[in-house]
């Protein structure tokens, strides 16, 4: 239930995809808040690189420290299976958030928004910005990132619709969620595809890099959209005439996602839920959540819907996120 649990002595760990990432930091904030509210202790781990290997190392350490729960944003959907299964065997409650592993590796996935919806809104944004036809490209994080691939697939599903017939997806490049690498990737896109109209970057680091590169490319009229942090991206959001490369983008509240993930961990540890489809739980603010089935045949809890962030509300959101 919502009131303080007797969680003293319990440790809840959160493992993000990588360090030095504003988006990840916001999630951690929300997670930590809730855990500490409920009296537990929170352990934050951010790997130095967005690889499966670094997360494996971290999870092994957490197993050694006998934490009660691990919430992790998976860098690879299959690569963490071994180590997460080991953690669950040892009695640790494993859940994922933001980027899912395969169904065998976790009890439940905290999903920011349904993939189909993310794919739809992004695709429609691209379509809109390209004015119904033309070349577009994707600037992603890593080729193995679970959430990226899931959204790319969702976009691919959406783009099969007839109306997108004149859209040409010409490239998918990877910035590894590293700002410098992302910048180089964006520059490469512009160079290799002179007719490129839109860059879609479903990652906060990527979208920012793309915006920077585009705004510096004076002779090009390329638009950028994707998923980004309002405070981070605010300077680039606006109209073409103002020289802003990003007309609008999407997100959700990462802090809320962190909070939801914390509730999931808490409820798993105290046994309120076990990760089965149909189970419900309530947060401290009396919001009820239902566990549904995820696309990979596991279970998930969905935070909400993608959030539109455009020039009309950027001022509001950049204060919050």
């Amino acid at each position: 239930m919502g009131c303080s649990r007797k969680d003293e002595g319990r440790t809840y760990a959160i493992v993000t995809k990588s360090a030095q990432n504003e988006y990840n930091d916001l999630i951690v904030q929300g997670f930590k808040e809730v855990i500490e509210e409920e009296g537990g202790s929170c352990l934050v781990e951010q790997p130095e690189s967005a690889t499966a290997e670094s997360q494996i190392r971290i999870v092994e350490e957490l197993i050694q420290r006998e934490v009660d729960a691990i919430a992790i944003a998976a860098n690879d959907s299959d690569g963490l299976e071994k180590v997460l299964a080991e953690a669950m065997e040892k009695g640790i409650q494993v859940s994922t958030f933001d980027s899912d592993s395969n169904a065998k590796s976790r009890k439940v996935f905290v999903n920011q928004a349904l993939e189909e919806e993310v794919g739809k809104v992004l695709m429609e944004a691209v379509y809109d910005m390209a004015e119904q036809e033309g070349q577009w490209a994707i600037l992603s994080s890593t080729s193995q990132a679970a959430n990226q691939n899931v959204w790319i697939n969702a976009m691919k599903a959406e783009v099969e619709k007839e109306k997108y017939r004149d859209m040409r997806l010409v490239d998918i490049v990877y910035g590894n969620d590293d700002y410098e690498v992302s910048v180089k990737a964006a520059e490469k896109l512009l160079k290799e595809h002179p007719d490129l109209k839109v860059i879609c970057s479903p990652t906060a680091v990527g979208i920012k890099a793309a915006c920077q590169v585009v705004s510096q490319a004076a002779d090009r009229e390329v638009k950028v959209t994707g998923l980004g942090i309002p405070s981070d991206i605010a300077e680039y959001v606006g109209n073409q005439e103002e020289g802003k490369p990003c007309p609008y983008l999407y997100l959700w509240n990462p802090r809320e996602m962190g909070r939801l993930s914390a509730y999931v961990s808490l409820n798993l540890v105290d046994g309120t839920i076990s990760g089965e489809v149909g189970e419900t739980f309530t947060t401290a603010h009396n919001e009820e959540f239902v566990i549904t089935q995820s696309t990979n045949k596991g279970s998930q809890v969905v935070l909400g819907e993608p959030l539109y962030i455009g020039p009309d509300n950027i001022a509001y959101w950049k204060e919050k996120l």
Partner: protein
Amino acid sequence: MIGPFRKMTKYYTDDMGLRKKLTISHLVVVIIPLILVSIFLYSSFYDMVIKNMIASEQTLSVQTSDTLKATISQAAYAANSILDSQVTRELFGEEGDLSVVESVDGQKIVNYYQTILAMIDGELITDIRIYYDAPYTRLSDFNMLETPVFQPLEKMTSSYWYGILSTTADSALFCPSLYLSLTEIRENGELAYITRVPYGEGKGDAAFIAVYFSKDKIQNILSQNITVNDSAAYILNEKSTLIAASDAALTGEYFTELDRIKELTQTENNFVTAPFLEQKLYLGYHVIDNSDWYMISVIPSSTVMQKGKVLIFEFLGLYLVVVILAFIVAYRLSGSIVKRISAVVKQMQKVKLNRPERIQAVQETQDEIGGLVHTYNYMTDEINTLMEQQERTAKELRLTEFAALQAQINPHFLYNSLDMINWHTQKGEKEEAAKAIQALSKFYKLTLSKKNAAVTMAVELEHVSLYVELQNMRYDDKIELLIDIPPDMLGCMIPRLTFQPIVENAILHGIMRKPEKEGNIVITGWREGTDLVYLISDDGVGMEQEVLNQILTGEGKSSKGTRIGVYNTHRRLQLLYGESYGLTYESTVHQGTDVYIRIPEMGADYEEYHTMESTDSSLPGSSGDAADNGMQQER
């Protein structure tokens, strides 16, 4: 440091039992070379194991990549055979000329369709599509429900593969799942080879031929590349997009981008190590020819080292078995040697308790130990013989001495002497009687003395002088005794009662056989080397040759018993000193007899045969008595 080592060595060489010693030496001979070889080889051995494994992995990689190449080439081949076919060229030859399309024989297209269908084997090639440009809508009439090969291109224009092909000059594309639409993945196949069918030079694309093939098949081939536990093989394309993997979980763990791998390994099929968690990974890549695909092989070093360790343990195990065998062999070999030596030693130790016994060997052996046993037995026999001989000699000596003693207590001499004394007494010749009694007393004192077995020459001469004196009293001074012994010989030892039997014999069988019944006896002596020789000569009747021959052998008659005495004396001397000593008789009939007595000067051995010892210094001849001087004459 050296001290204890020296101690150990000394213990080993001098004191350690033979069996242990031999076993140790055997083991040392076996173990030391083994250890040296092992140490020498260990490091190279380990490297060899690793290199061996890597080499076999490399070979396997080559094979696998060749298989992959051949496999995916089938898809390319299928596409190209369609591309090159007559109908394709006829159909898609010119731009949007409907009449051309209409004019192509329907039957031809049906056959065309059938041919294409036939290429779909369901195993590798899962589906084929021809995406035709707008003018070719007629083609869709030829589709059969289950497999609608001919599809309008506009359906696929928003796909990634079309985006790539439409903006690049590539004529064909190997497509990972990322390039395909979700519908294609779901309905046609997870991988594809897509080639364009251009209208003509730079005039756009009339169609695209897409040959879809099975990812599972590719993953099966990759799995064949896996010989080592926890290793993985996966395929990346030039853009580091994952195409297929032998094991999704392991690949996810090990995933390394193509550029990084190329950077590390430098060349194709070159395995190098990269750190991964607590161990290392062996990475290598292989180009899959005729495509932009690369096969990456990843082998964890822990597994390689594990195999290496297993091999080393097997080697150590074998080594241990060899050492144990060596120990057993050494132990048994040394046992066979030591057993027999120990038997000899044990037998020899019995000597402390009993007489030496022969070793009864189970079988005769020819080696040194056999020789030892043989020699030991011979020695034992010799010792036993000697001991028996000694016993016999001692026995005989006792007997002869006893006999000599008995002879001394010859009653005849005593009766005659007492008679003589009585006669003197009867005649009232008191001095004569007293003299005789004194002489007799002294004589028997010397004769019966329990003291030394050997006496000095002085004592013996006194003894024999007394005898002659007593005989002279009886025989009326008819015997003249002349003694001529050098003074320095008077202290020499001689066994008791040696001269007397000879002198007795000389008197009774020599002189008293003469008609005149009188004669001379001369006793002389001299040294010959280390021997002492005494000569007792008489001028009696002498002996005939026959008698001479028999006198020292104890045969023949003896009328008076003195012959036995002579023989006895001779035997005694021989027993004491050896065959070369004793008496020698020379005689000339009617002239006399010479008796030579030869003894060695030492004479002290004599004592060993007797258990009695004399300490009474009052009697002459006992130890410490000085020799008498000068010649003695007795009447």
